[in-house]
């Protein structure tokens, strides 16, 4: 039998996602290089340490703008409802491979991740501008720059930890990567992980 597929992400959505993803990887590598002395050599991702310092913020702006597009694509799918609270409370069952609640397009974990990413992106942009030399930092008082550097590092680390979870979840739940690469998921995948969304998409009663 030919497998039955549902379109989950359009080509523009996928391109958008991967622009953010590539920017994130470059930024995480160079950012960790600035954060951990022993990983300073990772500045090599942009050629030289000085180049990394110069290029990092520009890539950051690209990531922010691309993410902003994603934010407006998805925020209305990410309001947390009672089913999501049920999901979050039973996250232990979920971790064992079980399904909890009548999940729609996104589950409680995905929605939480969406808001974590949105918050981190906003903080990273604001603090990044305050610390950005030579263009903006000179216009801000030094105590504010100190706070910005702390906020930038903290929110970047929270985002990195979040992305590790995001990537792992995609690797763990088989058939998920396909949604962001080919744009489609199988009926079985949708019915198991996002039953409410499955019904909405197919018109099936179950």
């Amino acid at each position, binding site marked *: 039998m030919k497998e039955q597929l549902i379109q989950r992400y359009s080509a523009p959505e996928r391109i958008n996602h991967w622009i953010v993803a590539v920017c994130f990887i470059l930024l995480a590598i160079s950012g960790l290089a600035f954060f951990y*002395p022993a990983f300073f050599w990772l500045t090599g991702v942009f050629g030289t340490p000085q180049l990394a310092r110069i290029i990092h913020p520009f890539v950051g702006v690209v990531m922010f703008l691309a993410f902003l597009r994603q934010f407006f694509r998805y925020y209305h799918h990410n309001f947390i409802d009672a089913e999501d609270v049920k999901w979050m409370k039973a996250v232990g069952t979920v971790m064992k491979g079980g399904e909890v609640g009548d999940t729609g397009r996104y589950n409680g974990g995905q929605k939480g991740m969406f808001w974590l990413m949105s918050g981190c992106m906003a903080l990273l942009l604001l603090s990044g501008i305050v610390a950005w030399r030579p263009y903006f930092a000179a216009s801000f008082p030094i105590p504010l720059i*100190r706070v910005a550097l702390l906020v930038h590092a903290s929110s970047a680390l929270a985002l990195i930890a979040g992305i590790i979870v995001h990537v792992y979840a995609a690797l*763990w739940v088989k*058939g998920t990567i396909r949604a962001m690469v080919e744009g489609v998921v199988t009926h079985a995948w949708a019915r198991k992980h996002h039953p409410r969304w499955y019904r909405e998409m197919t018109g099936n009663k179950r």
Partner: protein
Amino acid sequence: MALQSLDILRRSATPTATPQVRNTVEVAKLIDVTTCIGCKACQVACSEWNELRAEVGTNIGVYDNPVDLSDQAWTVMRFNEVEENGKLEWLIRKDGCMHCADPGCLKACPSPGAIIQYKNGIVDFHEENCIGCGYCVSGCPFNVPRISKQDNKAYKCSLCSDRVAVGQEPACVKTCPTGAIQFGSKEDMKEVAATRITDLKKRGYDNAGLYDPAGVGGTHVMYVLHHADKAPLYSGLPQDPAISATVSLWKGLLKPVATLGIAAAGLFGFFHYITVGPNRADDEHAEDEKETVK
């Protein structure tokens, strides 16, 4: 290593030990503010020795010129008129790097070898390793480092580390006509200061004292002040400088917390996958078909 004759106590962004076996004497520059006449010979000597030429400024109504430290002005005289004990006092402070024993710039710097603290106490910027991030500016409790608009690298007083390395005193010390700037071992400079402070106290400056702030582990540029209890009188010299708590948190606690957080996320994923195993929907396909409408 730029100067082989100076052993290194600390090197920015370097987690392992630096070469420091030799027993170098800790040095210090003593600036006796009470003896300074504000002639700016030290500024000129600094400019000459270090080949720096600050732009010719304009008169802003006081003697300060250049008005601030810059990549081309590593030391500036700051003039302040105050009324103390019913008398007008003209307080003149030669501002510049204090060469802290616990340097905030070095703590903040992410680039290995861009900031060096020699064993003799001198904190030196090695601009060839500077990436221009400006973290040193945030780390410094004295607002000393300046980023050059020409090359985006940080500059400040080197305490003439090149001269000290070959047994000479810094250029500003050599040129000072009143002996207000002296240079020697930190121990000796403290003694010189103590003699002067006793003298000042006899003359009615009861709060005369040495500025060698403990909050930054002491400094290798020290001031003799007539009003050691009111350091801010001297054009905003901080009374109890210390590395900002924000910077300490960023460069301190955040690192182990971040390492644990990232490692926990990664390890959890790995062990989860090899124990619980992947979450497949296809296997349950047949089972789903059998289920009835709920």
